[in-house]
Every structure is written in C-alpha cells, then in structure tokens.
C-alpha cells in the first residue's frame, strides 16, 4: 500500500531549480532512503513536504490526500513528523517539557501529555535525561531528542534529516537500533543520510538525487552499483571502471 507519494516536485529558488521534477512513492512500513551529494536538494525536499517552503509546482499526497497546500503545523497534525538536520531543541526547557509540548499535538490534558511524553522518552531511551535542560545535552542526545519529540506527535510517517551525522560509532549503532525499533512500531520512515553505513544497512529502498534530479532508484545494492550514483559521489573516472 502506498502511504506517501510526491509527483513532479519542482522548487525554484530564484532561477535555480533546487528540486527539479522529482517523483517517488513510499510504501507503508518501509524505510525509504534519500541520498545525494551535498546541495543536491534532499533537505529542500523535506522542507517542501513539511511546507517550510511552498512548492513551485508538483503534488504531495499522504494517505491519498493532497497535502501540498497544508501549512507546517497541519502537516504535522495529519501524521508526518520530522527532525531537523541542524537540531532545534527548545533550549531553556527540560527534555521532558520538550516532549510534553510535542505530545499536546495528539492529546488534550496535561496529564495525558505527560504520560505520552514519558512513554515516548522511555521508548527512545532518553528517559534518564528527562530533567536536564535541553541545551545542555550532547549532540548525540540532541539528535535523539529530535526523534523523541517527533515520535511524541504520533506520526505515521517520520522524516529523519541526517539524524546520524556527528555521532560516534557506538551512538551510531544505537541510532540504527532506534530507527529500526521505530519502523517495527509501524511507522514509515523517509531518511536522509550521508553516512553510507547507516543508509545501506537499514533502507528497504533508496532514491538517489543530484542537482535536484532523480539519478537512480531501487534496493541499496542496485543504487550502490549504479554508475550515475558512483559518478555523483566519486567523480566520472570511477564510474566506468
């Protein structure tokens, strides 16, 4: 079943086509990888989905509903959570309060919000840091807080924007475990990632873009062997060996 799809997505910044005619479909329950070199438009696609930028043209469908014109908060309410590449903790609030604020998206009373927040913190293994002020967390914990907060809004689709960047090897393994755990909970995931270890091991399918255009799509193996992808990442001479 197709949970989410974008059709002919185009975004111009001035004269530059940051995203140029990108289309893809995401099956319910899969981990969908989005890769591409720096500046290829991955984060822009996320920003278009969550409506931080208006699309120049194209359509975004979620649950067979056209959400292209939704505002950011409505996109979240409809069931799409996201994290930010440059983490945005609510700095002067405690970790628990960060998650409670997010939990209010789905529950009404403070009591319910607190319960949901504590449960989500437990699930994301951040409960031991719940009383810490968010800005005093380490970068690894901040990335985890981003995921926790997004999860507290009970998304059906989670957009992860480079949640593994800047983590040390043991944190990286923990992050992979968490992402798989979230998938096992029935949440569909679209992940943007630079670290190939992460994206190649967990993705069910991968979509590669460069200069805002699709260059390859398929299983991790297919994409890794695709000459266009190798060229984009390593340069032309490696592609033809």
């Amino acid at each position, binding site marked *: 079943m197709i949970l989410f799809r974008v059709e002919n997505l185009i975004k111009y910044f001035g004269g530059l086509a940051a995203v140029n005619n990108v289309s893809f479909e995401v099956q319910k329950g899969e981990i969908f990888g989005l890769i591409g070199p720096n500046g290829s438009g991955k984060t822009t696609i996320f920003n278009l989905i*969550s409506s*931080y930028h208006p699309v120049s043209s194209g359509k975004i469908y979620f649950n067979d509903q056209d959400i292209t014109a939704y*505002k*950011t*908060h*409505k996109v*979240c*309410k409809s069931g799409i*959570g*996201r994290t*930010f590449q440059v983490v*945005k*903790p*609510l*700095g*002067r*609030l405690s970790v628990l*309060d960060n998650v*409670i*604020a*997010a939990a*209010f*998206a789905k529950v*009404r009373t*403070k009591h319910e*919000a607190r319960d949901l927040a504590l449960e989500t913190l437990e699930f994301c293994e951040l409960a031991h840091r719940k009383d810490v002020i968010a800005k005093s967390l380490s970068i690894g914990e901040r990335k985890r807080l981003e995921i926790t*907060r*997004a999860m507290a*809004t009970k998304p059906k689709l989670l957009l992860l924007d480079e949640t593994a960047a800047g983590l040390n090897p043991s944190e990286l393994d923990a992050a992979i475990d968490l992402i798989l755990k979230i998938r096992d909970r029935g949440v569909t995931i679209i992940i943007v990632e630079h670290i190939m270890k992460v994206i190649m091991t967990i993705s069910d399918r991968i979509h590669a873009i460069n200069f805002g255009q699709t260059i390859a799509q398929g299983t991790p193996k297919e994409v890794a062997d695709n000459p266009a992808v190798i060229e984009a990442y390593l340069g032309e001479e490696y592609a033809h060996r």
Partner: protein
Amino acid sequence: MKKYAPFVLLAILIAFPLVVQNSYYQHLLILVLMWVVIGSGWNMIAGYTGQVSFGDAAFFGTGAYTAGLIASKLGLSAWWGMAFGGFTAMAVAFPFGWICFRLRGAYFALASLALNEICRHIATIWEDLTEGMAGILIMPTFLSKIPYYYIALALAVLSVVMVQIVMNSKWGYYFLSIREDQDAAESLGIDTHHYKMISLNIAAFLTGMAGSLFMNYMGFIDPEVVFSLHDISIMAILVGIVGGVGTVYGPVVGAFVMVAVHEFFRTGFFGFFKGLAGLTGSEFLIVVAKYIGQAHVLGFGILVVVVILVLPNGIVGDWNKIIRKLVPMKNKGVAT
C-alpha cells in the same frame, strides 16, 4: 517557605490599607498593584511567548479611553470601562497581531512601537471623540483610596492566577515552544500564528483592564499620559525585566521595585537634593533639584544596565543566585 511566600504577601496586601492609613502610601501600593497587572500582561506575550512588545501603552490607553469615553460621552459610570476596557484593548490587539505576527523578533517589537505611536496620535488628533490634548476629566467615585485599593488588588491577583493557570496548560507549553524556536514549534504541530494571537490578546486584555482602572482611579487622562512610550510601554518592559522575564511572580517583584524607583526620582530622592540645595545654596544643586524629578528615565536606564549585568534573569529568575551570594556572608558573620 518559598511555597507560602505568595500567600504571606497576599495576606500582607489585604491587611495593608487597614493598618497603614496614610493615603500617600496607599496611593503608591495601588500603583504597584496596577503595574502587577500590566507587567503580567507584558510577561505573557514577551516573557513567555518571546514576542517582545514595545507598545503596551496602546492597550493601556485604549482601556483607559474606553472608561473615559463611556463616562464622558455616554454618561454612564466609568466603572463600565472595567467591563469593556479589556475587550476594546483586544479589539486593537487583534488586527495588529493578525498583520504583524508575520514579523519576527526585533521587527515585531518595532511594529508594536509604531502601534503605540499610532494610538497616541489618533487620541491627540481626533478631538471630536477624545478631546485631544485637553484630556478627559471624570469625577472620582470614591473619596477614600481603600475601594480602589481592593479593586486593584483583585485585578492583580486575577492576573497572577490567570498567568499561572495558562502557563500550566497546553497554551503555556505552546507559548514557551514558540519563544524557544518558532520553526521547531511549527514542526510539532503548533499553529504559531494562532497561539501568538492568543497570547497577545490575553496580554492586551489585562493591560486594557489596568488602563480602565487607571482612568477610574486618577480621574484624568490625556494622550501623553496613557499612551506614553516611556512611562507606560517602557515601564512595562522594565517591570518584566527587573522582576524576571518568564516567571509568574517576576512582574509582582518588578512592580514594587519600579514604582519605588519611579517615586524616588519623582520626589527628587524624597526631597534630598532640594534640602541639600537649600542648605549649601549651590547653584549646581539647585539645578539638579529642579530637574531630578524628570530624570527618572535616566534612572530606569541605569537600573536596566545594572540588572542585565548582575541579574540577567531578573530578581525572581536569579533568586537562588541572590540567596547564594547573601547566605555565605551571613554564615561568616555567625562564625566570627
């Protein structure tokens, strides 16, 4: 002890006019209570929601003029202003917020400053309605200050309780989220424009109520008084900053301090300079004594610099820091 402090303070405030008969001190406390209301309003929009307003006088003056016009044009009691003042202030806040919440940070602050000036000019120029610079004069209802005192106290308690309730609810969490990071707040499903409007309208409501009270109590208003940038808008900010931005009791403490400082300057350090000038006959001191009353804005400026340097979170926000500084000194005193 900290838990009971508000109740102790409330008990003292209830008993105050019965114990202290001096109407000057009663007057000062009425002003303090009025500033608690305005400060709480400012704290809601600026302290908790992070949308710094430089234009509280727009809401204050609207509330005051509502009461004044009900009395002078409709011939009703100015106390009806207490019923409508908050809502007319919201009527000003609503279109302003609707348009200007597209602006962020300093740009919103500048827009609110402009709102302040627009309101002042309208009140000055529209003489048919507002009597312009001549102002509005009404007969005070009570000769004694005690009724005003208790009304002001009730309003102050209402605003503090209201802030506390709101900040413990979903709204409170949303306001704080917006203050901390507006983009993150949006991604958490928070309609930031909507909740900023709620916050602004609560602030406007409280400030408008305070304005109506001011009209009833003072009996006279003109545009320069109630739409004053430095005596209302800036004072509201100072009450918030000195007391502690984003704390429930910050505006309470701030109101006490700021009214004291204001009065200190207005009376020329309680007549100190006048006395000194008279004693020494110095030309310089005579000039100082003459102008010191108007120098309170300078005093405010110095106070803000000191507070931001020493207590960046205000008196309430840095209370533990103050205690830590004071307690070792006490211990040393006991030891020696």
